[in-house]
Every structure is written in structure tokens, then in C-alpha cells.
């Protein structure tokens, strides 16, 4: 199997796996539930029409976060929409939509009876949002200003950019997951947090050395294409920034995987776009004072401006 078909299939499989789960709807009193557009809204759809005064009574709803059952979230108002048969619950405080919420609704036909259900954003959506965030919204090159030495060094040719980006992503994912493991199971239990930097950079060098050795034996053709970039990976701040961010945010395994994939993909994206521009710039008539690095910085600044447009993007 050659590499492009392999990548093609891998991407297709990934998309399929990520988008496949469909939300199961609860049957009975409640036909649907979701978080509203505003941060402090929650929408409950009833299966059949409900009396308006009943539905708009605040005391008929009890909502709390799954991890804090003792803290009841205070409702400000409930609006009932007769056409959609749905009630919009407005809370006094904005909801933390990343957490699962438990909602209990009194049954209008049977007094004393109630229906309880759990409301959470799909976890895969949350995972995907971590990746999209690292890829676009918080792109490591254009909005966090990391990895610039390698970024400017290897973005002169498209081929180089692709090679560097892919090598970088592989090393990134492997070393981030290893760092996550070391942090969660060795550094944290034994209170060795101050060794973070030494351990993480050591793991990165180890990964680079390992990828180098394995690739040399297993796939010499690939090694010839990407081997040169391996050394450069160590000199890239993103590779050490990601484990530090993982440790700071206490991410779990899947979240770490997504963040490192997003960081690597974002770097690849940035390198590829930049190299496309720089290839064209070689033919352009640039003032002699701006030739080379200065104009590359100006272009990167314009990319950074464009990436500002992604801030506030939320897909899930």
C-alpha cells in the first residue's frame, strides 16, 4: 500500500469513527434535550403537549451537575414554547457545558412522579473541539508564537514543509503520550513535579532517537525523505510546550492524543501555507531591504491576523 492511499484511508476511517455515534433519544415524557445557544440556557422538549402554567413553573425542574449532586443550580425562569412543545430553562449562572448535568422534570399527568435524565455534550464532540482548537483557534505558530525558528527555517519549499510537518506530528504524538504517561503515573504520585522540564525534554530526545533508529531499519525510503528533519524537531519549542500544557490542564489520555494531533496538524498547516507563499515570493519583486527573512515575518504576521478570525469559533 503506498503512502497517499494509506493516509486517505486513515483520514476516512478517523472521520467515520468520530462522526458515527448518533445521540440516542430518551422515550417517554421527554423527547429531547440540549444546551441552549446562550451559556445559561437548557432546552427540554416534551413528547406531548404540556399545560403552559405547569411547564413554566420553576419548581417543577431540578438541575444539578453530575459531580456535585448537593449543589442545585438555581433557575431564573422557564419559557414554554407551545409550537415546539419545548421549555427553555434559563439559569441565574452560566452553565459549564463541558460537564454532565442531571435534570429532573415533574410529570404533569401523574402528581409526585418525575422523570430524570442526564444531559451531556457528546464526549467525542468535546475531544474533536480540543483538536480543532489546537489546530485553528489556538494554532501554535500563529496565535501562540511557538516553534518559530523551525517554522522560518523549513518553510522555503513545499516538499520540505510537508516532510517537516509530518515528521513533527509523528514525534509530537508519540512524545506527548509518553510524557502524559510519565507525568500521571510517575511524576505526580511521587511529587516530582519540579522534574517536569528535565523529564519531558529527555523523552522528546529519546523519541527522536527511537524514531530515527526504527525508521532507518523499517522504511529506508521514508527515512531518506524525513530523516533530516528529525534533528530539527528537538529545537522546536512546540514539542516541549505541549507536554507542559498537558500537565497543566490535567488532560486524560484521549484529550492528550487530540491536543498533540491538533498541535502537529496545526504546525503542518502553518508550514504548508507559509511555504506556498514563500515559493511565490521568490518570483515577486521585493525591495532589497525586505528580501529573505524580513518579508517572511511580515507574511507570518498577516497569517496571524487572518487566524485571529478563528477566535470564538465553536463547533460543538
Amino acid at each position, binding site marked *: 500500500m503506498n503512502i497517499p492511499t494509506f493516509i486517505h484511508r486513515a483520514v476516512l476511517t478517523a472521520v467515520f469513527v468520530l462522526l458515527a455515534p448518533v445521540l440516542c433519544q430518551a422515550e417517554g415524557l421527554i423527547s429531547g434535550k440540549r444546551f441552549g445557544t446562550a451559556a445559561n440556557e437548557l432546552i427540554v422538549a416534551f413528547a406531548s403537549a404540556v399545560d403552559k402554567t405547569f411547564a413554566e413553573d420553576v419548581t417543577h425542574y431540578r438541575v444539578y451537575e453530575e459531580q456535585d449532586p448537593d449543589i442545585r443550580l438555581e433557575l431564573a425562569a422557564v419559557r414554554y414554547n407551545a409550537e415546539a412543545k419545548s421549555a427553555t430553562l434559563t439559569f441565574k449562572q452560566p452553565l459549564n457545558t463541558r460537564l454532565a448535568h442531571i435534570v429532573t422534570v415533574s410529570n404533569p399527568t401523574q402528581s409526585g412522579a418525575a422523570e430524570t435524565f442526564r444531559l451531556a455534550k457528546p464526549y467525542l464532540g468535546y475531544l474533536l473541539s480540543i483538536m480543532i482548537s489546537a489546530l485553528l483557534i489556538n494554532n501554535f505558530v*500563529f*496565535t*501562540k*508564537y*511557538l*516553534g*518559530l*525558528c523551525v517554522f*522560518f527555517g523549513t518553510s522555503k519549499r513545499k516538499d520540505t514543509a510537508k516532510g517537516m510537518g509530518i515528521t513533527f506530528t509523528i514525534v509530537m504524538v508519540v512524545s506527548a503520550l509518553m510524557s502524559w504517561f510519565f507525568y500521571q503515573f510517575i511524576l505526580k504520585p511521587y511529587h516530582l513535579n*519540579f*522534574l*517536569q*522540564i*528535565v523529564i519531558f*525534554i*529527555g523523552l522528546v*530526545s529519546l523519541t527522536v*532517537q527511537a524514531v530515527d533508529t526504527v525508521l532507518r531499519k523499517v522504511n529506508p525510503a521514508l527515512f531518506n525523505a524525513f530523516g533530516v528533519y528529525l534533528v530539527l524537531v*528537538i*529545537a*522546536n*519549542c512546540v*514539542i*516541549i*510546550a505541549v507536554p*507542559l*500544557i498537558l500537565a497543566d490542564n490535567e488532560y486524560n489520555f484521549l484529550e492528550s492524543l487530540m491536543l498533540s494531533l491538533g498541535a502537529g496538524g496545526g504546525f503542518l498547516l502553518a508550514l504548508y501555507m507559509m511555504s506556498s507563499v514563500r515559493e511565490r515570493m521568490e518570483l515577486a519583486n521585493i525591495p*532589497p*531591504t*525586505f*528580501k529573505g*527573512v*524580513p*518579508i*517572511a*515575518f*511580515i507574511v*507570518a*504576521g498577516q497569517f*496571524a*491576523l487572518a487566524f*485571529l478570525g478563528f477566535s470564538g469559533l465553536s463547533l460543538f
Partner: protein
Amino acid sequence: MATDKTNLQLVVNGILNENPIFRLVLSMCPAVGISTTVMNGFMLGIAVLFVQVFSSCTISLFKNVIHPRIRIPTYTLTIATWVTVIDMVLAAYLPEAYAKMGIFIKLIVAFAIITMRLEMFACKESVTASFWDGIGMGLGFMAGMMSLGLVRELLGMGTILGYDVLGFKPLLFFVLPFAGFFCVGLMMAFFNYIELAYKRAKRA
């Protein structure tokens, strides 16, 4: 092998001829990311100076025992150790400044300039020469960061080190985070212009 430069020449070399930011174009991340004020530049400069001087001296001391094949991992771990030291010192004594610089102090470990100086200079030269070279490189980095900070702070907020100098804000654009790219690009172009003009004047 010993360098034939005097200590003063080594220091000046780091600040002017081989300025890490404007000449070698290394360690650009902090130059773009947190050069919004002179103070930021100064603080990070101090940290880099410390790490550079101490790692240079360490490597220079142990240069005869380090096996050439594992020299790069050795450099990395030496730098990481000194970065951990400065990271903890700053977090303990200057918490506000530390919070402002965020992750960049820890990222000194990946700054290409430090590894490069160890590879090019400290692993061959005496401890004294390495010490002065480290001082020069650290000061050069600090000077680069501070000059960028000066331009951005003055043009963006009309202040220097927090003191109001101009009394008005000429171009707010310069303190915005992404303006770091434009600022570095424009300053490099400015230095190129001076160099070209100097050469032209010399020829005429």
C-alpha cells in the same frame, strides 16, 4: 584549541556581530510572543543570560568526559537542569513577572541559541572563554528583546518601562500580540537598510 579573542571581544561579539535575534535569527518565539514591554524583555533576558552562562560553564568543565555521540542529549539535559533552577527561583521570588511570561521561561530549554553556543563554542574552549561568550550571548539576547520591547512599548502605549514618555498613544497596533511578527520584520528590514546604506556610502 583556544580562541584568540579577548574577553571583551567575546562579549561584544555576542551583542553586535552575532546578535542572537537580529543576526542569527534564532530564538524568535519570545521575540514575537512577549516582547510587548521593555520589562518583559529584560526579565526573559536575565533568565536566558543565567541559563546560557551556567550551561556554557558546565559543558566547558566536563567537555573532556562527554562522549561525542551523546553530546546533544547531554547538552539538552544540562540546559534543562539550569532552566528548572531559574524557573523555580523566578516562581518563588518574582511571581508577578513569572506569571506574565507564562510558559516561555520553561521553553528556554528548547531555545536553539543556547544549544548552538554549547555545540559551537563551549565544548571546545576553556571555562573562562565560555563564561564570557555566555555573557555576550545572553546580553545580546537581552539587548535584542529590550530593543524590540522599546519599539513596541513606545509606539504602542507611549511609555517606557511603564513611565509615560510621549503623553499619547501613537499606534495601538504595536502592542497587539500578532504585531510581534510585523515588528520583528520591520526592524530586520531597518537594519538591512542601514547595512546597505553603509555599504553604498563606503563604495562612493
